């Protein structure tokens, strides 16, 4: 089993990019050989897609990487260190690194996890994407599908 998991919040502008990419891929039937999942902000549910028998997971998410807004990059969290200082877990304050930390602490074997990070221009309250991300949306879809060899 291979999963593309979009995470984020529709109501926080570019923080919705992961959800929109997953949604577009599913709507256009581009999820051949993998399943596109929209997790919204329920990051704890990511744990359900990290169990045994999972071949690989691509998480699509907005990521502050110090790049130009709209740029995207594939990376693994082994090669990235979170700058968030979070007290714990809730559906709203957690992030990907925190959930994976929980999975590791539970002693679960994790499948290879890659992040398609997209540098946001705006994560303030609001629906829709910034023009920077809207203009490059197809690039993200192509990159995500291409990750699985599509």
């Amino acid at each position, binding site marked *: 089993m291979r999963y593309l998991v979009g995470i984020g*919040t*529709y109501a926080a502008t570019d923080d919705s990019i992961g959800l929109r990419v997953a949604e577009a891929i599913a709507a256009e039937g581009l999820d051949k050989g993998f399943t596109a999942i929209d997790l919204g902000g329920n990051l*704890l549910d990511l744990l359900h897609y990290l169990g045994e028998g999972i071949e690989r997971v691509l998480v699509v*998410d907005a990521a502050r990487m110090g790049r130009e807004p709209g740029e995207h990059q594939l990376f693994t969290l082994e090669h*990235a260190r979170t700058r968030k200082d979070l007290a*714990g*877990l809730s559906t709203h*304050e957690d*992030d990907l690194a925190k959930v994976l930390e929980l999975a590791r602490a539970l002693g679960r074997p994790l499948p290879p996890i890659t992040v398609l990070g997209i540098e946001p221009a705006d994560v303030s309250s609001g*629906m829709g994407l910034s023009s920077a991300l809207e203009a490059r949306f197809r690039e993200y879809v192509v990159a995500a599908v291409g990750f699985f060899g599509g």
Partner: protein
Amino acid sequence: MLHDVNINVHHLTRVEGHGNIVVNVTDGTVEQCEWQVPEAPRFFEAMVRGRHYSEVARITSRICGICAVGHTLASVKATEAALGIEVTEQTKKLRSLLKHAENFDSHVLHVYVLVAPDLLGAPSVFPLIETHGEVVARALRLKRLAHEWGSAIGGRTTHPTTVIPGGFAKLPTVKELEALREKILAAVPDLEATLDTIAALAPKIPAFDRPTEYMAVSSASEYGLYDGEAVETVLADGDRARYAVDDYRTFTNEYMTAQSTAKFTKNRLDSYAAGALARFNVNYEMLRPEAKAAAERLGLEPVCTNPYMNTVAQVVEVVHSAYEGLRLLDELIESGIADEGIVQPTRFASGASAVEVPRGILFHEYEYDAEGMCVRANCIIPTNQNHGNIQRDFDALLPRLLAEGISEDDMRLRFEMLVRAYDPCISCSTHYVDVEFVR
């Protein structure tokens, strides 16, 4: 007794969204004691104006990544009321089943991940892996069940795709329902263990009674999560009042305050409570026998006036949803799933709905023109209905804590626990990853 207190909790953790607790006492005089909600309004109502009725639920489901099912259901129900659509019994049962999945999921998360650390003296769920590993593993098993439950009916859990005005775009098969039934049955031992855990922790729940008005959707045939003929309130003395859903503005009475960007509400008193404890107080008689037994075991009786007990009421509702889910599944499996098609509009007018989401009542209202385009919309979320009640709780709690003579740290924890007990979902904040690359 403390004469000087300075509590300033900026962005309280383990709640959904951003809220602040500010308490200042100088020389024994209370200068400030506030629950502040600084988040910006989203104007979703404006986003659906000019959109076709078939699109509206898809847009409103994105209001919240936690209560997306509730927003979807409230939206299609309001649209159906406006368009004169009467859905079938099969549709009602499937939607009710989906609603139970959402409440089950949200309550498990709140009880185990957000509240349990307080009761076990931990700052978050992480230390509990070491000390209470089986409890954390159980929480995740129950979360997984809820996730699969919601996906089976809604197409996907977070933003359901199958629920549309007039029925279902895609129906589950009987085989899928049978598989879901087996999964819920298999979770019964975990439910029993949950009751054991909460019964052991219940003595740590603070004692604090402050009577208020409790409001919930009311139905003659069910506990009133997905649907109900009316909205009912009950006071601590058992006095009840009943209202038509269409009149929701007259009993929510939204108003602005200087301390918050979110609106507050009130009805018969200067605030009211919505959510699991309110539902329990209003609809106790409609609970499943298994849920009533759970309530008795956990020491919860209607009318309960301790807001900290909302968490216990959530546990009771988890039990109710599991057994009510089984009942609905049994009926659907026995009758089989019929491809009934989508019920079409008979008019284009206005309509309102009320659905119980994990944190309380969600009201949606729409008006459509003759082309089926939305010309007016309104939405009142449950957390806003609780802000005023939280503030009144603060007002009553502070003098009691001062009289108890507890430390400022303990006082802060009691305020934090109080807010967390309401399980507020203030609004969805961002989840983006913030990283630096390690070379």
